[in-house]
């Protein structure tokens, strides 16, 4: 018969493990960014599965280390060597970014946690510092790590954001390790963001859906 002592020992084993509370307290402040890095990696995986090797770059120097923005920021920087990835598919060039702000069609700026943008526009905005225009955005994802309850407001806000990004956006979605049944229903109508719930390495089939969407859309838009 299981005793309370057994339960207490099981809780202690979890909390005291090298990947338990000690490590979590060290990395907690970047837990959302770790999730963005994971989704960024899935984008790289999609590109690679199309037979293309993405090239990592930094804004001011080679990307060693590859630095993710700690807060929403501009695509250009004089002081920080933020990383991004570049790839070319069927003669068209793209970049993958994290935490970059765009200028919406209304003029309001919006941050996209992970996005794919046309290289020419990105280069232009680094060369002549500016926010990338909405028309340069190909794909954008909101990424939310939750060790708790996913907020409904996130879905509403992201729908509004995508609405302000114009008609060139081919792929967008809300990615989370968590799940929300009402948000799933909210995203059902056509033109709403894709709900990528339970997008986590613990569920490889959800990873495949995400990666295949990227592959499919990139193939379709670059087909000659």
């Amino acid at each position, binding site marked *: 018969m299981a005793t309370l002592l057994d339960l207490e020992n099981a809780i202690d084993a979890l909390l005291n493990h090298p990947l338990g509370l000690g490590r979590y307290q060290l990395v907690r*402040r970047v837990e959302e960014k770790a999730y963005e890095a994971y989704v960024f990696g899935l984008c790289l995986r999609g590109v690679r599965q199309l037979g293309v090797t993405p090239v990592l770059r930094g804004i001011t120097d080679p990307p060693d280390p590859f630095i993710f923005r700690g807060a929403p920021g501009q695509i250009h920087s004089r002081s920080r060597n933020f990383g991004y990835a570049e790839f070319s598919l069927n003669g068209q060039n793209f970049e993958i970014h994290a935490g970059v702000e765009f200028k919406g069609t209304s003029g309001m700026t919006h941050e996209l946690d992970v996005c794919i943008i046309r290289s020419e526009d990105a280069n232009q905005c680094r060369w002549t510092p500016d926010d990338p225009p909405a028309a340069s955005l190909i794909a954008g994802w909101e990424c939310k790590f939750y060790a708790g309850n996913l907020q409904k407001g996130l879905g509403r806000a992201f729908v509004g954001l995508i609405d302000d990004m114009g008609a060139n956006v081919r792929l967008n979605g809300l990615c989370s390790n968590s799940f929300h049944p009402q948000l799933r229903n909210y995203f059902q109508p056509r033109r709403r963001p894709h709900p990528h719930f339970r997008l986590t390495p613990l569920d490889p089939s959800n990873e495949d859906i995400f990666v295949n969407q990227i592959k499919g859309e990139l193939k379709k838009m670059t087909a000659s």
Partner: protein
Amino acid sequence: MSTHEYDAHDALDLLMRKLNERDEQLARQIQSAIDVGKDVEEKERFARRKKPRVYRRTVRFSDEEALDVAIAALQACFVEQPLFVNSAEIDFRPTAMGEAASRSLSAWDRESRTLPFTHEGVTSEKKLEVELQTETQISREDQQTLRLEPVPDQLVEQQKENLTKLRLLATFGED
């Protein structure tokens, strides 16, 4: 016959007490996820209507459901977080290391519209870091960046086993 000498309420109480002792912030976060409750469909029957009226009602979680919520949150922190970093490390590894953006622009081949390709760095481990001291932040951080450090798979497997054991001890379905 019961296989536990405690019930779900005792288990939840012990888990939340231990979490509160060790990390109040995480305990608060999990408590608030539990306190949100869940939506259920309620049916209201009327004598003159054939079909009952169905409406949404938010109710509190049972102690067993609350335990599930808490354990899912612990899984997110102690298993999924390390896996995100490991997955990113694996997906970044087979990429090439290019030069800085300013230099790549000058090498840009506008005629052929293809990127200058490099095989440099393909298959090597890439160091991933997150900025802590942001560009606009006035307050000073001790560290500029924090490395996203991959962890051995063996440790992740151990934590998965620890979670499985905890789940088993917190499941009362057949009692």
